[in-house]
């Protein structure tokens, strides 16, 4: 029997609006079409023509989960155009916060993923641990989600709660072992193993990034390939899996939680003393900023003309990874659709960059 299965744009499985049109034959997926763009807010346009420090809070609002990755990417790019070298302590502060954000983001995803599998207890457990990181943010920066830490030419605040950060990092490091055990239990395995497989060659062909690529065996991490900030000295270990299924994606992220905890502790050890920021003036030029966000490589193209932003192009990791979803879904059972879609950790507020209009101002298609 054949039928068409519409999912979305507003659907309980997806926490953000997007639309999938899935053709199912005998309980198996045979064709996938998707449409995104419901979240398009025109941030790139809002940024055009602006100048000064006021642009950073807008960049921060591209994504609520990985906002620090976005601001770091943008600030690094503008600083490179201006030819400013950051004070060392600012570099380390950025790295420390980025790693804390990675822990937070991965735990958030692992929790939601457990929930999507129907394992609500685990969701609650994971979010309880995540709360520890959020409290650190609140104490240190006065806000839980959007941190407001980055500014062009450095960072705005120093950390005050080192002891607490160390405590939380150690705790989550221990917890990640427990997580690994939970996710290798028989029940979870039967749900995730061999589901949504993406071969290495496909992953390469589709130019995937981040944990999704690493789960298919591609050793790609901007922190190692083009080190920025304090990653020039810290060398994060890259973990890859060969299987390329949903379980592999979970395992890669659990490993990254542990590795990030280690990096946080190392940052606290090695944090040099000194100034937090330097002055910066907008200079003309263009460049590309690349950072490793929790979901993969985040890329900002920034062009400045006459001291004002002429163009910002944001290529978030989900944009690169999303093209793989139809390939992962083909041949899967209908019941596995949510776990496969969520396995790339999609973030649509990052990704919805375009809306296309015709000359009469009617929207004709969305990406």
């Amino acid at each position, binding site marked *: 029997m054949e039928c068409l299965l519409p999912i979305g744009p507003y659907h309980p499985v997806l926490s953000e*609006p997007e639309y999938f049109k899935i053709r199912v034959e005998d309980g198996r997926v045979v064709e996938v079409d998707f449409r995104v763009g419901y979240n398009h807010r025109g941030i790139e346009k809002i940024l055009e023509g602006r100048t000064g420090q006021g642009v950073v809070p807008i960049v921060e609002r591209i994504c609520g989960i990985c906002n620090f990755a976005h601001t770091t990417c943008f600030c690094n790019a503008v600083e490179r155009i201006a030819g400013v070298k950051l004070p060392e302590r600012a570099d380390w502060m950025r790295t420390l916060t980025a790693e804390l954000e990675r822990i937070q983001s991965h735990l958030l995803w692992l929790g939601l993923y457990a929930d999507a599998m129907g394992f609500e207890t685990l969701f609650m457990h994971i979010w309880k641990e995540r709360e520890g990181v959020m409290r650190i943010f609140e104490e240190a920066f006065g806000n*839980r989600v959007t941190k407001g830490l980055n500014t062009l030419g450095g960072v705005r605040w120093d950390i005050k709660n080192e002891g607490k950060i160390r405590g939380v990092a150690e705790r989550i490091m221990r917890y990640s072992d427990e997580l690994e055990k939970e996710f290798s239990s028989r029940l979870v395995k039967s749900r995730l193993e061999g589901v949504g497989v993406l071969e290495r060659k496909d992953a390469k062909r589709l130019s995937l990034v981040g944990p999704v690529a690493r789960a298919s065996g591609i050793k790609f991490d901007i922190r190692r390939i083009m080190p920025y900030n304090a990653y020039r000295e810290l060398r994060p270990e890259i973990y890859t899996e060969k299987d390329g299924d949903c379980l592999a994606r979970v395992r890669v992220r659990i490993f990254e939680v542990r590795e990030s905890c280690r990096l946080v502790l190392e940052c606290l050890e090695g944090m040099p003393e000194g100034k937090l920021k330097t002055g910066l003036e907008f200079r003309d030029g263009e460049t590309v900023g690349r950072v490793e966000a929790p979901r993969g490589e985040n890329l900002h193209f920034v062009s400045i003309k006459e001291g004002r932003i002429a163009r910002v192009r944001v290529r978030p990791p989900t944009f690169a990874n999303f093209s793989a979803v139809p390939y992962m879904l083909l041949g899967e059972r209908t019941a596995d659709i949510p776990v496969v879609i969520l396995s790339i950790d999609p973030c649509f507020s990052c990704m919805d960059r375009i809306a296309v209009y015709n000359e009469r101002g009617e929207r004709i298609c969305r990406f």
Partner: protein
Amino acid sequence: MISRSPWLYHFNSGGCNGCDIELIASIAPGFDLERLGCVLKGSPRHADILLVTGCVTKQAEKRLKRIYSQLAEKKIVIAIGSCALSGGAFRSSYNRAGPVDRIIPVDIYIPGCPPRPQAIIHGIKTALERL
């Protein structure tokens, strides 16, 4: 005294996700919104309270109206976050139809970018008293 247990429906009308994850955080341990008898539901037809986050993009406008019309009677609407209230960082966006109260009537406004879970819980508690 709380005599009812309302169900919630969450509608993301195009924000940065910050408010949405704070909403989920307020359900998770540490804040535990469910102790007020609330659960997040997957369908507006089962829900008494509609929680709207985001600046309402043009694509979301029609759908927000439709979902509001499907809401169970009493139809309490809570707008969460600066961008739902006024547009916030996306005020000058060309693709914005909001704020929320221009499209559907709003009962309770929770400011903040994003508001803390405590504020969200306070807003929902206030809504409970009105139910």
